[in-house]
């Protein structure tokens, strides 16, 4: 079966060591994690991580269930690019002299919708947000000149769904707790 790029969205408590517990589920099945990105989300105390990996749906469905089995994981979802709005950020460090000497660079930055976020006498840092192919396209162009450093973040995502499943789940859990207290 052909592999495709999946996005796994994990919502968890903020527990020390949970990251390795989750990533090793991929390791056990020899799946290379392409990118991983974690931060607190809109729900207080809940952390959201976005993990991308190439695999098959059959395998990834099992991986996601095993992630969700971790006691401190609240929910985990298997998503494809159709389910989500996503973005990545890339930084490109070039020499400032190059920027001044090379007249094409200004139009390259302009056409790619990138922006300059830091300038010193020595170097300039260009920032570009977008999908992989967009940040990669700018990289390919700058590579033809001289690029000192290039780095790209993991993707951050929000779902296209009209329902907020994690918030709903947490509300359900509150009801469960109340019911349990009464009984």
């Amino acid at each position, binding site marked *: 079966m052909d592999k495709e790029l999946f996005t796994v969205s994990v919502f*968890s*408590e903020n527990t*020390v*060591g949970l990251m*390795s*517990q989750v990533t*090793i589920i991929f390791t*056990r099945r020899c799946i290379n994690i392409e990118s991983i990105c974690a931060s607190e989300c809109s729900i207080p105390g809940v952390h959201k991580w976005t993990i991308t990996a190439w695999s098959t749906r059959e395998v990834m*469905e*099992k991986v996601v*269930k*095993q992630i*969700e*089995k971790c*006691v*401190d*994981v*609240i929910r985990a979802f298997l998503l494809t690019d159709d389910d989500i709005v996503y973005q990545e950020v890339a930084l490109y460090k070039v020499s400032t002299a190059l920027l001044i000497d090379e007249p094409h660079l200004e139009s390259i930055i302009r056409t790619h919708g990138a922006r300059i976020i830091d300038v010193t006498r020595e170097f300039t840092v260009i920032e570009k947000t977008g999908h992989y192919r967009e940040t990669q396209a700018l990289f390919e162009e700058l590579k033809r000149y001289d690029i000192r450093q290039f780095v790209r973040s993991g993707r951050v995502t929000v779902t296209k769904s009209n329902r907020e499943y994690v918030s709903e789940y*947490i509300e359900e*859990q509150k009801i*469960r*707790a109340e019911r*349990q207290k009464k009984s």
Partner: protein
Amino acid sequence: MSEMISGAEGLIKSLLSEGVDMVFGYPGGAIISVYDKLFDYQDKIRHILVRHEQGAIHAAQGYARITGRPGVVIVTSGPGAANVVTGLSDALMDSTPLVVISGQVASAFLGTDAFQETDVVAMTQQITKWAIQIRRPEDIPDAVARAFYIASTGRPGPVVLDIAKDAQIGMMEWQHKTCDYIRSYNPMPHVDSADVLEVAELLNNAKHPLILSGHGVAISNAEEELLQIAQTADIPVAATLLGLSTINSDVPQYKGMLGMHGNIGPNIATNKADVILALGMRFDDRVTGDAKKYALAPKIIHVDIDPSELNKNIKVFKAINADAKSFLSSLALFIKPNKHDEWNKLFEQCDKVEYDEVIMPEVHPNSGKMKMGEVVNAVTKAAGKGAVCVTDVGQNQMFASRYFKYSAPKSFISSGGLGTMGFGLPAAIGASMGAPDRTICLFVGDGGLQMTIQELGTIMEHGAKVKIVLLNNNFLGNVRQWQTLFFHSRYSQTHMLNPDFVALAAAYAIPGEDVTSREDLPAAIDRMLSHDGTYLLNVDIDASDMIFPMIPAGGTVDNIMLNENKKFSL
């Protein structure tokens, strides 16, 4: 304000409030404060001092399996914690509730390669249900409450509390804490009545129904519900290895064990059934053989409390995330009386072949050295109702599981998923501690016994009552069998020069005897069973004895070897 006590004392008070009255352990530098406090609570908590930490954790597993309550283990940092790793992995695979408390170096030393430091949480995360490090005394009561809740609910499993030395020594204000809710953890899935009705309909209309009863039935105490459904609708029941004793051996609907060395009927029926209800089991490769060709015809309904097991090893017709007992007690209301005489004939036919070709020569041989099957058969007959079968791993395990008769729930304790040699002796000690009134029969090989033989010292000191049946063929028998069948009888490193086991037991003040002839066996078994305490029977077994029937690894469940040269056919 309540009085200030140390974290170590707080830990013990928290254990007491969880109802703990017995722990298995081994002291050491990083847990010495806890042991110092245990000294003050000796009248409330009995500490079983083992001879190696692996013995402690397997004993706790035996205790947990027979009582249904979490087994508690206390070990020190570094090597102490490292020595329980095998047991943690075993307990996770076999869904056994454990709370393992390990000492840890003081928090200021964490990450510095301090003496006897090892990163216990990192090391055990993948083989526990939950592992956490505690660095402040005030965190102990909450952590203990959560640990017991997590270990014993949902699909049970082992939990590790790694407690830094300063958290044991530091002072705290102890409060009784309980835990019955964790936001991110929902251990009791809701049983959907539509699912129950659908399954009832499928079973009521099935011509060839089959129930596969797994460990989940035992863990959730659903034995009565299972029996009721099986008898009402006359549905054949097959057990997985750890599902043994979820239904008594003499119930007509019980058709035997599944898997590589299971009974022929259940394995053959797997491919001939029209509806299979699989309860609290996980379609392990030793049950399915080639999973791609497993049970293609029947509609499989898989009920398991662990959603990650559903559709994991095989794709099923209907996957139901539920506790076996909750599900079965609802299902029982809708199961209609039925008869399946024609379907039962298949089992009779298979049983006849199995009896003639396999059981008869194994259990009633006329000549030659003794066979494992005949010994197990003689022991189970003499031990009578309610006896417990504990096994080690290998041929002894398969012969014991096949030929022991189960007449009460929670009567079979074995290392199923991990297949840990050395499990048997300490697990039998723990089982005896947990159920001192039951007859605990341990079947163990000469290889496995020597992996944890130091625990004879624990028996000597703490007085466990274990009927040790040593099936001694001076070989690692199961590997030898594979070498015979698949490696041209090249016995690479499977022969063992063994010690005088009876003399060894005697050194630990444990009586025993060598049994070398068939005629002496019954009287020797009687002496073993009537002795009030542990007794060792060192039985001289035919090394060429092989466990059959056998479905070779990766084969299909209807491709069954009856012996070296003959395959099963109806």
